[in-house]
């Protein structure tokens, strides 16, 4: 019996919780399924830009640590999101960059060096089955699976090595959104259930992302009195959006994320604006977060700027070994986030 070997990424080892993620399922709320998809949508777009894809396809999403991988054919990969220790056959790789992965070479992704969610994208994307319009695993809805050691992830048929090699060796300068910080929120339909004093205290409070956060949401720990709503009657269950900050019955805020439930009865004090969601989801365990209310006009300007930035990502990719100017910036960024400088950078410094 002969079988045509499909192009694949072989998973030799992988940390728990990894899954394939794409843009998710935006139109199933009416059926009780939240959008899901990549926790850091911007990182998915950055990976796509590095691979010269006109639109984001899918990526392997990993949290906390990566794994060891091997391709069955020459391909190009991109690394984006929370930076990790990355090596190809023992040689350190730049993060936020694309790299040629030759058949048989070993890609090692180690501990994450900040942030929460890291992405490994491949040229042409992973050929995962489509369910309900997307390839994303959605664990809350029972869709898809965790990626495990021994899996062979089929990838799209690759062009010849010479033509894909031109895509490798590109880098992208990325703003540091991996240490927590200030997230902007807008008032939502239940914000007026909280007094102005409560909302002001909410914005003055420094929260810590609870380490047990998952794709559904993150508890936000803090010191101080519980947050109370001022509703005298019980609150009827209503629509929940990703980015909502819900105040649970014990007075603790929860950030509701990609796989949140679609409806809920706990009131939401506000909603994080889409362009600050990457910072919210990338806040590392016990990392600090504060919230700042902005008006709708400010939020829409930020949204407009964010979309323009995503559109420019492909054009913003630059060769990572050729331009001393870019190398210097990349090196500076990597020192800030604690990544070991890559070998190509050391050579360039000579």
């Amino acid at each position, binding site marked *: 019996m002969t079988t045509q070997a499909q192009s694949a990424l072989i998973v030799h080892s992988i940390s728990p919780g990894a899954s394939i993620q794409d843009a998710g399922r*935006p*139109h*199933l*709320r*009416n*059926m*009780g*399924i939240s959008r899901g998809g990549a926790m850091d949508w911007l990182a998915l777009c950055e990976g796509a830009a590095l691979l010269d894809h006109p639109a984001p396809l899918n990526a392997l999403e990993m949290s906390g640590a990566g794994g060891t991988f091997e391709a069955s054919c020459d391909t190009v990969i991109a690394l984006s999101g929370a930076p990790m220790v990355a090596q190809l056959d023992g040689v350190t790789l730049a993060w936020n960059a694309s790299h040629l992965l030759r058949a048989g070479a070993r890609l090692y992704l180690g501990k994450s060096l900040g942030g929460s969610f890291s992405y490994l994208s491949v040229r042409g994307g992973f050929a995962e089955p489509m*369910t*309900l319009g997307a390839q994303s695993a959605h664990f*809350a*809805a*029972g*869709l898809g699976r965790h990626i495990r050691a021994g899996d062979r992830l089929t990838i799209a048929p690759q062009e010849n090595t010479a033509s894909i090699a031109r895509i490798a060796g590109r880098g992208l300068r990325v703003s540091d959104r991996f240490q927590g910080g200030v997230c902007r929120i*807008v*008032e*939502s*339909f239940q914000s007026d259930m909280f007094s102005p004093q409560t909302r002001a205290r909410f914005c003055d409070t420094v929260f810590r992302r609870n380490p047990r956060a998952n794709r559904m949401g993150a508890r936000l720990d803090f010191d101080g009195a519980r947050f109370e709503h001022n509703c005298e*009657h*019980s609150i*009827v*269950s*209503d*629509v929940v*959006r990703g*980015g*909502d900050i819900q105040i649970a019955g014990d007075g603790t805020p929860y950030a509701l994320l990609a796989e949140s*439930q*679609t*409806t*809920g009865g706990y009131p939401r004090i506000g*909603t994080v*604006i*889409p362009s600050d969601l990457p910072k919210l989801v990338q806040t590392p365990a016990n990392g600090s977060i504060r919230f700042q209310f902005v008006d*709708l006009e400010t*939020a*829409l300007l930020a*949204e*407009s700027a964010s*979309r323009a930035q995503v559109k420019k990502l492909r054009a913003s990719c630059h060769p990572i070994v050729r331009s001393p100017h870019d190398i210097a910036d990349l090196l500076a960024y990597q020192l800030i986030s604690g990544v070991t400088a890559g070998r190509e950078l050391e050579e360039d410094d000579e």
Partner: protein
Amino acid sequence: MTFDPPAPTNTPDFPVIKHVGIDGLIVSFAPQLTDTANRAAIAFGDAVRACNWDAVSEVSSTLVSTYVGFDPLAISHVELTGRLASLLQSQDWSQAPMNTTRKRWHVPTVFGTDLAPQLDEAAAMAGLSVEAAIASICAQPVRVQTVGFAPGQPYLGTLPPAWDIPRQTTLTPKVPQGALVVAIRQLVLFSVAAPTGWRHIGQTNFPLFRPDREPPFLLGTGDEVQFVPVDPDTLERTSDDPMGGATCEELTS
């Protein structure tokens, strides 16, 4: 920003249009669940969907509200709020027919027994004998008031006032897929095994969410469910049936 249109209603501040995040509007018909508010939310959602507005990406209805997701850079909040307000004023939505293609499902259900151990307790809280409790649940079809929380999971109602019983103070660690639970004049049918604070009074084999089959979701908002009491042996014989023994008829409103 809120907008209070002078629409026909008995509650002075409703319906009301409010913002949800930066890219959603919600039209709420009442502060608490009522049957008329739920009917209005479903009918109004159908009407918004039928408008097919370009920048509107999704419409869904919850218990008392219609949610409209849209691209705020393609249509302004003011413009979309105005369109929704005009539509609100065009008729009394609590009296409007629900114009989706609706179905009525007849679902074989075991009440009580080991399969649904909290029937006695729930009936006592409702002040009914077990027989009267089953008769009350099955006396008329109940409407899918909303689908949510979990995939394909319906909230059904409205039950008679006797069923205004609270949720438990502690969670039942797990009820199985197909469980029928009750609280606050509503029923929920579980699409997946899950913990719940509602009381488990019936058990079905009704498959609410089948991601690998067409259609993946059997119940939509506005559909009706008639529970049909059966004994455990009868239910067991439906376990191989892809519909769990349920049958369906088209409703015309």
